């Protein structure tokens, strides 16, 4: 997964919660026309009719159950996984699938044995068009502009949703409400285990339009470190912003090509508790750019750059921070929580002594930290408009296979591929992915539809123990931000506003601007549409 400093910021829309969703649902309108007041009770009823019924199903009990929306953690792999889809769900049809991948693009058929194994397991012929997640925004904007050219099944990242996404969804994709709403989901046993909160994020324009790739409440960026290197120097965890600066200074040795921290802005805004987008102050909506926390986080980040403790390539945003971290060019590495497992799996055999650990989250002044609950999906998949009901049903059957939870045969097939080709079993019976799997998989059949997010890399028990400790601590500080879960499409002429502030942040870190320019930058943002944006969101809040 990518490590966007603030995933919410890169979105053109936010996900509705029950009430907000209802506004769009009952009005049946696009965001630009969604200002019509609606009776909340009536609207809530309308939304509840859209969501698939939830049927609990846990083949295995977790070692750490979900708290405050965090992912449950499973420490042992079941010896006899449960079969939930006894027969291959497909009818041998051909489908095109477009899916973003975070690392390199996998090989295509016939070289890709994972693809052929999945096609066989699903009894379908998928032509997979995988592309790099970094290109997602531009890719979607151009792809969706030509609805007849969209593939049969398209996975769209929430961060990459293009402007006017509500219009795009209407023009390009099928409404899945008649197939999944209420009890209609029940033939799809695994889809029914996905939580209602997650399904809410699949509703666009008052219709259930997509399938989810669920996200846990805390997948935010955390601060990882090279424990092997810190232990050698006898250095410990920071408990405040001042501690972090001191630690980064201690670790920095440019002559040895070693810097304390990489891409610091990806973590400092969490340390200072910067809100994802809006917060309420005296009944008034205040944007993150206008908050004291934002200014303090910026100032602190500037001090890190000025102290020379940040890897120089972080400024030009070239190269891969993860590569620099594994190569010990930067020792502290802010990244999304899922990046921890991915990095461990990818480099466990190639970097001797590599020990990646995470610091407990801390507030800048040593006080109680605050983290904002992330939107319930990070990707949604859509079925092309005009697809026949038969093919839609076939695709939903396939999605049901992909959504099988941890502890099932189907989960094992999707995430570990074929035995001996894509994974081997270790002494404790846990599957260990092979190098071939890493190359061929890349999440291609995971992202179109997945179960509620589990943490289950049972071949890495030490990692799971550390993760449980981290989640136990962090889960107590998670709160829902304003407009949580509400799916609001911002008018097209206001979508580019963030870019000028992102450009300002970069100028600030590169010393091309100073903190004294912040006030002018905010005024410019407000004048260019920030105030209009506040009014726009204000209408949703009133409703």
């Amino acid at each position, binding site marked *: 997964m990518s490590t966007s400093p603030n995933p919410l910021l890169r979105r053109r829309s936010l996900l509705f919660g029950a009430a907000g969703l209802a506004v769009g649902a009952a009005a049946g309108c696009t965001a630009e026309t969604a200002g019509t007041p609606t009776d909340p009770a009536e609207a809530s009823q309308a939304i509840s009719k859209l969501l698939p019924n939830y049927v609990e199903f846990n083949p295995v009990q977790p070692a750490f159950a979900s708290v405050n929306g965090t992912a449950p953690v499973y420490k042992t792999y079941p010896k006899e996984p449960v079969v939930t889809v006894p027969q291959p769900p497909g009818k041998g049809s051909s489908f095109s699938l477009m899916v973003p991948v975070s690392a390199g693009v996998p090989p295509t058929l016939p070289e890709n044995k994972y693809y052929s194994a999945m096609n066989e397991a699903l009894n379908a012929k998928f032509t997979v068009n995988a592309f790099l997640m970094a290109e997602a925004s531009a890719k979607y904007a151009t792809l969706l502009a030509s609805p007849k050219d969209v593939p049969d099944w398209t996975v769209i990242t929430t961060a990459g949703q*293009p402007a*006017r996404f509500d219009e795009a969804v209407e023009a390009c994709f099928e409404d899945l409400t008649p197939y999944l709403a209420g009890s209609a989901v029940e033939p799809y046993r695994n889809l029914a285990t996905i939580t209602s909160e997650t399904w809410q994020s699949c509703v666009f324009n008052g219709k259930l339009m997509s399938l989810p790739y669920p996200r846990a409440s805390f997948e935010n960026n955390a601060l990882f470190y090279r424990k092997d290197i810190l232990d050698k120097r006898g250095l410990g965890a920071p408990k405040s912003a001042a501690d972090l600066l001191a630690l980064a200074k201690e670790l920095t040795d440019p002559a040895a090509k070693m810097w304390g921290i990489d891409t610091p802005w990806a973590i400092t805004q969490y340390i200072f508790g910067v809100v994802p987008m809006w917060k309420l102050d005296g009944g008034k909506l205040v944007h993150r750019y206008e908050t004291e926390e934002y200014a303090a986080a910026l100032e602190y980040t500037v001090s890190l750059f000025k102290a020379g403790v940040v*890897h120089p390539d972080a400024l030009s945003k070239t190269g891969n921070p993860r590569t620099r971290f594994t190569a010990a060019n930067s020792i502290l590495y802010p990244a999304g929580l899922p990046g921890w497992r991915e990095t461990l799996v990818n480099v466990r055999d190639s970097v001797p002594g590599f020990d990646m650990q995470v610091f407990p989250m801390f507030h800048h002044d040593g006080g109680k930290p605050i983290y904002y609950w992330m939107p319930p999906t990070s990707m949604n998949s859509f079925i092309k408009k005009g697809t026949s009901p038969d093919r839609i049903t076939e695709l939903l059957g396939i999605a049901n296979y992909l959504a099988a939870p941890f502890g099932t045969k189907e989960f094992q097939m999707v995430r570990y591929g074929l035995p001996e080709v894509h994974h081997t079993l270790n002494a404790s019976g846990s599957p260990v992915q092979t190098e071939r799997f890493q190359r061929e998989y890349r999440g291609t059949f995971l992202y179109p539809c997945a179960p509620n997010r589990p943490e289950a890399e049972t071949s890495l028990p030490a990692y799971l123990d550390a993760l449980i400790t981290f989640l136990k601590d962090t889960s107590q500080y998670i709160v829902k931000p304003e407009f949580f879960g509400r799916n609001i499409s911002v008018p097209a002429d206001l979508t*580019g506003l963030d870019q*000028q502030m992102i450009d300002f942040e970069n100028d600030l870190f590169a010393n091309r601007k100073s903190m004294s320019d912040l006030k002018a930058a905010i005024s410019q943002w407000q004048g260019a549409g920030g105030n209009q944006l506040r009014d726009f969101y204000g209408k949703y809040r009133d409703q």
Partner: protein
Amino acid sequence: MTANRSGTLVVERAAQGPHTVQASGAGRTRWTQIRHDGARYLMVLPALALVLLFDYVPVLGNIVAFQSYSPYKGILGSPFNGVANFQRLASNTAFWDALVNTLAIAAVQLVFFFPVPIVLALVLNSLISVRVRTVLQSITYLPHFFSWVIVITVFQQVFGGAGLLAQWFRSRGWEPWQVMTNADTFLALVTAQVVWKDAGWGMVVFLAALAAIDPTQYEAAAVDGANRMRRMWHVTLPALRPVIILLLILRLGHSLTVGFEQLILQRTAVGVRAAEVLDTFVYYNGILNGNWGMAAAAGLIKGLVSLLLVVGANKVAHLFGEPGIYQRGGDSSHHRRRKARRR
């Protein structure tokens, strides 16, 4: 093959003159000419159709510059908004910054990049050893085949904050020179990158033109006592002049297309004030932010400025008696000179 203003058809075969056929005649009607050259017209038709289909029909899409355009509603479904997109552009400081940056980069590259392939070609052409010339030629035009991502990565590895140069500075206890993140020297950096990548490739056309110069002209000049510099000045450069002017005009037409990939890859490193150009402005506003109408308006302005540059440069070329990218109507001075030479 060119048509002059009176409609007579001039077919120019091969390089020059002896086979020139003039199908003009005072008594001939246009229809007679068409019948006479019917086969040639037929041969041109497919190419003409391609040009119309792929070059002129898409131009109609510029209508979105006058609409509040949404690709999901299409041109027919999107409302017209007059010149509102142009007004928004005019009041957008980012657009003016982008325009100024584009013109600055175009001007600097015209002055500092354009002559480099000519000089390289002259130097290589003066080498006697064919092997050395071939090796040098291969080395200089190899970077042309690298993508911009590779070029920027190479520059980053050498000149970046953690690159070879910075580490060399640090090993001597000096503060590293920030080459890749310095907005003040960005113009020099992008020009250096273009020179490294494309100067060798640009030299190929000039080498071909140099090969076409009749060696007897050098011999005659040498007999007349001209030294190497004199021969270059009086024989080589005049022979290259039409090619230089033609390429210069063509480059002017593309001059506002200053390297989208190259700049977007370095935009964050040096900041938007230095690296935003019209193409990146259009990309961010149109593709990423969905303001297709405003982005199309910016693209239209860019196209008009480019057209003016080409037409203007071509006029200047004609004033100096050069053919430019098309012949002037009637019997141009250039033709008169060529006819006189043939006689």
